[in-house]
């Protein structure tokens, strides 16, 4: 796909290895898409890595920046990209040309496990498995917009979109929107409805609480719904239920007054609900903007494809620890039990330990992941779970606990199917694990201005880890009002859970948001324990204390 030249032909030697390793992987029970390996030199691999693994991406300086960083840090010997693999069917993976054969083996084994994870983990279920094609289509679409509207304009708009691209809802892929029969196509429903907003409204009022209303927003001209109750007050007489036609003397039978009254009450309640816009706080801020911001069609299209890409990459952020842990677990099994030749042991051990190495202060996801998987396997092999075990407080007995259940393998396969990093750590990080792995929480000591070990309490360690994983480590931000102050202004709320935002970034991001919304934008958050509203009105930033 990348190059068809003879120089980059996949060597027979590697091809044979590939089949061998794939077979071993299958024997172990891994199931994966077909994998296509490409051999690239370091410049090419830096290039592909800059594009997050995809050979065709839209034009943007950000990729160039990433490339600079990657190729330079490789050239200076600071970092090396060992493996890269794309969640796609078929799965594409890249090998670095100058690697030793033993490295290539390791990478291949690693890649097959990644691919198994992509295919089987639930969080990847809704990702587009033809993403390589899709990304190329995005590139073409943006290319066309560039031709038509100019590089500067399109680039500036993409900058804005990228500035907001983390404002998506990790739960969204699993929510049913509209009357979509095909769950996997939820993401495209945007295209369908972006032009005709009321299609969404008439569609499925009854079942979807996260529907995007069409209540008027002065600036974006949300066009009314079919029910004519947009401007209704609670006691507005226009809220009348439809009456069936009848002769006047039959009316009280055809349209019983009790029913009419109840129905009117119903409608009023609905109308009240509807006045809030969005009806419930919307975490998929990008979708809200696509549907409601006064964008030009090409802008709407670009924003929606950037959203699509953001959702595609989301599960990879959600499962970093598991995914790497899983791949490491399997490459070590496949390598040490099957593939490794005697002469390669030292090189393998060297590189494997390099992968698992880490500093004291930064937990290595590869290491944490693989250790947890091994811990789970051991616990389920020995039956160290369940009521009886947890209630046992005899340390000796616990240590020696072995019911010889042999459920370990089965369990880790189940775990790889059902969990993401957050639930993975929440469920399987045990006190014993923290103790034996010597985990600790460190924090900054203001007085001395150094970072010190704070404690080794299990609860604290777990909390710190889970905090970092919640919402992929991003602040939780929702649209709470699209008609703030009744002036068509946009209000976002940050659900503050103990950590303040980076305020310099927040104000720049608000400015970008304003470029899309074109009316003043607000953000409610906390600063040092006090509630605050940040505002950008197109000219200046301001802050309002709320308490």
């Amino acid at each position: 796909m990348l190059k068809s030249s003879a120089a980059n032909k996949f060597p027979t030697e590697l091809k044979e290895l590939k089949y061998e390793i794939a077979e071993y992987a299958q024997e172990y029970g891994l199931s994966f898409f077909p994998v296509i390996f490409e051999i690239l030199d370091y410049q090419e691999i830096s290039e592909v890595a800059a594009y997050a693994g995809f050979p065709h991406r839209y034009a943007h300086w950000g990729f160039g920046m990433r490339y600079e960083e990657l190729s330079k840090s490789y050239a200076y010997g600071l970092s090396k990209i060992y493996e890269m693999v794309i969640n796609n069917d078929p799965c594409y993976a890249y090998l670095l040309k100058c690697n030793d054969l033993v490295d290539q083996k390791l990478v291949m084994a690693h890649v097959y496990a990644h691919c198994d994870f992509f295919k089987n983990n639930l969080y990847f279920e809704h990702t587009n498995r033809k993403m390589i094609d899709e990304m190329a289509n995005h590139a073409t679409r943006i290319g066309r917009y560039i031709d038509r509207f100019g590089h500067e304009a399109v680039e500036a708009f993409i900058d804005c979109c990228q500035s907001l691209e983390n404002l998506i809802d990790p739960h969204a892929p699993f929510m049913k929107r509209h009357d979509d029969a095909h769950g996997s196509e939820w993401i495209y429903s945007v295209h369908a409805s972006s032009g005709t907003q009321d299609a969404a409204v008439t569609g499925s009022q009854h079942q979807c609480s996260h529907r995007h209303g069409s209540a008027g927003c002065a600036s974006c001209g949300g066009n009314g719904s079919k029910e004519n109750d947009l401007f209704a007050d609670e006691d507005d007489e226009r809220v009348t239920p439809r009456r069936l036609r009848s002769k006047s003397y039959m009316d009280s039978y055809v349209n019983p007054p009790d029913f009419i009254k109840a129905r009117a009450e119903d409608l009023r309640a609905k109308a009240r609900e509807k006045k809030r816009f969005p009806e419930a706080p919307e975490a998929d801020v990008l979708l809200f903007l696509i549907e409601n911001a006064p964008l030009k069609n090409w802008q709407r299209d670009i924003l929606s494809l950037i959203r699509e890409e953001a959702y595609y990459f989301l599960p990879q952020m959600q499962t970093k620890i598991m995914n790497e842990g899983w791949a490491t677990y399997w490459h070590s099994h496949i390598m040490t039990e099957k593939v490794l030749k005697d002469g390669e042991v030292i090189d393998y051990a060297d590189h494997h330990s390099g992968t698992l190495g880490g500093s004291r202060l930064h937990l290595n996801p590869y290491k944490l992941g693989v250790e947890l998987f091994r811990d789970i396997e051991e616990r389920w092999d020995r039956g160290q779970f369940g009521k009886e075990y947890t209630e046992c407080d005899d340390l000796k007995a616990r240590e020696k606990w072995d019911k010889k259940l042999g459920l370990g393998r089965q369990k880790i396969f189940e775990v790889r199917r059902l969990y993401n990093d957050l639930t993975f750590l929440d469920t399987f990080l045990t006190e014993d694990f923290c103790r034996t792995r010597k985990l600790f929480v460190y924090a900054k000591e203001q007085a001395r201005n150094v970072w010190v070990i704070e404690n080794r309490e299990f609860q604290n360690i777990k909390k710190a880890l889970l905090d970092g994983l919640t919402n992929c480590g991003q602040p939780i931000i929702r649209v709470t009002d699209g008609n703030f102050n009744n002036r068509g202004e946009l209000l976002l709320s940050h659900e503050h859970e103990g950590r303040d935002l980076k305020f310099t970034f927040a104000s720049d991001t608000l400015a970008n948001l304003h470029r899309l919304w074109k009316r003043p934008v607000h953000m409610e958050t906390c600063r040092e324990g006090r509630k605050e509203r940040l505002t950008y009105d197109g000219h200046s930033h301001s802050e309002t204390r709320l308490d």
Partner: protein
Amino acid sequence: MYAARRIERDQARFKKMVRGTIRSGIRKYITRGELIGKTGKQFVSIPLPQLQIPRFRFGENGKGVGQGEGNPGDPVAMDPNESGNGQAGSDPSEHILEVEVSLEELVEMLGEELALPRIEPKGKKNITTEKEKYTGIALRGPESLRHFKRTFRQALRRQLISGTYEADGPRVWPFTEDKRYRSWKTVIERDSNAVIIYMMDVSGSMGDEQKDWVRLTSFWIDTWIGAHYKGVERRFIIHDAAAREVDRETFFHTRESGGTKISSAYELCLKLIRESFRSQEYNIYPFHFSDGENWGDDDTKALELLDKISEAANVFCYGQVEGLYGSGSFLSRLQETRKEDEKMLTALIKGKDDIFDALKTFLGTGR
């Protein structure tokens, strides 16, 4: 196949943005002292926070999870984000993007921004230099040049052939005849040479701030001229009532009291040119910085000497720095009497912001 390498397009775009950002702020960079500290290498790091796309994200985390020995209260680091890459599941480690711009690029930008003409080395002032290039391997040589890999290979080969190599306990002992040494070739390089002679008034009226301006100005002069010649020599002369040649360090950090006799510096400069840098062989760039407070009867003598210097030099640049007690009259004397001399370039530096214009004057002739 790629149509054209896509990444090159994006990279070019990125570089253009970087350059744009740098150029729009080039005045700022020129007047920034800390830049000089970083130029030991070939690159200048320029922090570019504005190229990071802003997002709603968390500020600094006051907490983290680590792994290893230690008791609560033990310090673990001054700053955990220093050597940080990718904490498990945590926020991307905080770093400001630093773009490395090579000094050459920076100079090029400076040239473009100031619209400086490139310097044309004058005449046939080419001299040859001999350079050693390590290209070959020799059987004899000093131990310091021993080529380890080749020696090892040779020894290994001998052992394999003679059957003394043991696969179980591989030990390789090089004999004298196994040893290989790096050897060199002498290459003759032709090049036009240049010398920059900095002169500075260090009399009591030149304060630290004034010297800082001189330092910044001379940094850019150095960089610019250095970009046009392969071998640039630098000489430093300080003077009050008497002049002496010093090294760079002393040049910027000496402060004397006492009066000023500009002629003393010029005399020394002239002597230097005549003795070491004959104008047939060198492009000569004398720069003089002073607050212009000269002893009254010295002006005439100084100007006479100046004529002789300027005869030999490519240009003569005089920067008058507004000192603690204002600006002296030497600048105006110079401007009055040497109006026709094209080689005589003068600038008045009242503050950091004037450095930009001074550079334009000094370097704007392309000589």
